């Protein structure tokens, strides 16, 4: 269950408390997130929406350990990541986060197989075990017959499937999707969303997704809106502001 009021106990898979992020631009301080709270349980599928500059991607970067907050804490599966060193955070990302990007971010000089294998190179798996994992992941996304294709030889939808296979191959704690259908036509977008839903419903994956598209957001269990640095619930009802300060 997803909560944004900071009232949950410590059993949540992802627990965010009092999250602040401030940027300096031209000497001016811009506060993007202002004491944000969030609780996500295992198997939840949440969509973040909001206007440009509302902090959606900033929140995703913070949850994925790609950026560090100005204040507040993020705890994932019992590990507080906000005070981890750069190298610890890198290791943590490898173990816990699967990224799905809008522009796919596949390595163009590597085949689909090699792209999917990348996260496994950071594990202690043997070559044959890695092969099994990669083949399984590519089979899950329906690209078992495209393993030796390079990204340029694949359609946008297929590229995004490879990205999803790369995200799930190491069985991370949760998936972060940044506009996963933003670069796709509607048909491909539907297929990708069906795949993500399958990951949640069939494989029990936890997915946090940023999107501009209400149709895509509607596929999530819950849609949260980012407004003025705070998260407000908004699926099926008018957004309701949730006070966040001092909720940790």
């Amino acid at each position: 269950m997803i909560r944004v009021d900071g009232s949950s106990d410590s059993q949540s898979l992802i627990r965010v408390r009092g999250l602040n992020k401030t940027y300096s631009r031209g000497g001016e301080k811009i506060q993007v997130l202002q004491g944000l709270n969030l609780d996500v349980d295992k198997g939840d599928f949440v969509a973040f929406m909001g206007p440009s500059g509302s902090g959606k991607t900033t929140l995703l970067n913070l949850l994925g350990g790609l950026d560090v907050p100005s204040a507040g804490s993020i705890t994932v599966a019992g590990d507080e990541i906000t005070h981890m060193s750069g190298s610890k955070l890198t290791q943590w990302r490898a173990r816990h986060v699967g990224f799905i990007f809008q522009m796919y971010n596949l390595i163009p000089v590597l085949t689909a197989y090699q792209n999917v294998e990348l996260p496994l190179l950071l594990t202690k798996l043997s070559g044959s075990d890695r092969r099994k994992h990669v083949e399984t992941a590519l089979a899950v996304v329906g690209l078992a017959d495209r393993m030796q294709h390079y990204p340029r030889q694949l359609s946008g939808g297929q590229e995004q499937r490879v990205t999803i296979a790369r995200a799930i191959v190491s069985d991370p704690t949760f998936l972060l999707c940044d506009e996963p259908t933003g670069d796709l036509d509607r048909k491909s977008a539907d297929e990708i969303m069906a795949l993500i839903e399958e990951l949640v419903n069939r494989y029990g994956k936890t997915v946090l997704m940023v999107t501009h598209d209400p149709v895509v957001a509607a596929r999530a269990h819950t849609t949260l809106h980012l407004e003025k640095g705070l998260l407000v619930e908004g699926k099926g009802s008018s957004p309701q502001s949730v006070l966040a300060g001092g909720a940790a």
Partner: protein
Amino acid sequence: MAIPLTYNFRSVKARWTSAIVAVAGIAGTVGVFVAMLSLAKGFRATLVSSGSPDNALIVRGGATSEMTSGVGLDSVKIIQDAPGIARGPNGPLVTAEAVLMAPIPLRSTGTDANVEVRGVSPNVLEIRKGVRIVQGRMFTPGLAEIVVGKNANTTYSGLTLGNTIGLGTMQWKVVGVFDAGGSAFDSEVWGDPHLLTAAYNRPDTFFQSVTARLSSPEALTPLKDALTTDPRLNVDVTREIDYYAKQSTRMTTLITTLGGFVAFVMAIGAVFGALNTMYSAVADRGREIATMRALGFGGPSVVFSFLIEALLISFVGGLLGCLAVLRLNGVTTSTINFQTFSNLAFAFMITPSLLVEGVVFAMVMGVLGGFFPAVRAARLPVATALREL
């Protein structure tokens, strides 16, 4: 585990137009580096091969070369009877040699070059075992005949078999060509010492050096002890091979220093070429690098990966540079030997170890050119770079 090498190989291949600039710069630098060193190596090898470990060279005490030495006939007779000298059927294997300079025109330019003319004993071929007559015959003692080294034969005008040439006040017939195994003797002209000194109005009882065949390589010490402690003599005794090795030092140092300087200046340019290539690689691949970092590859992995890429480029450059100059191997050139002021022919000598040095030099340039771009790659702000187009 590090970022797979396939990534680097294919990235270089995909951006070969950018990499080729660095490859060409490094190849050129390595080519010059290897060529210069092979020149120095060839010069040294030519001189060193002139000496034999079985021979002793005796010069005046304090003389730095044969040209500044003088050994009288009375001293030669004492040396002949010294211990440790091998003996042949006709007596001790000793050659008292008069060394002279004769200006002879080069075939290539027609300008005169100093040729070392050596008056040698008739038994010289028994003492210098590496020398053999390959055309004609040995000169006859007492006659105005000369034999010429194979390089002298091909380098200078008038030193062809059967020809007559003026040296000093006399006319000399070329009766033979000898092969001294690529040593400095190949650039010399040999004849009867008494006639040669007479042709140059020098006393025929005065020589520049004495070369003696040792009864065994270990016999040098007793010979040296005997000669240097004899109050009638003032001589230095050196193993012949050591003498020629020392003779090569000044020129090889000069070539190595000049070559090293040229290679160093070129290397600076090549490193900047590599820097440029690698910086543009980092700039072009910001999103790829950020993706790797997001997936969990650490900063050191990224640094290592880009260093590998720089090393790959420099290795190819080094290899091409070596291949480009490989054809110089064995090509003969000549220069003035500073010790004797005579013209000395020698060949570029490209050895496997020299090629390895060339490739290592290339890879050092690669590391220098790749390090800072690699660090920049590792420090890219991941969150920003992930969204680069």
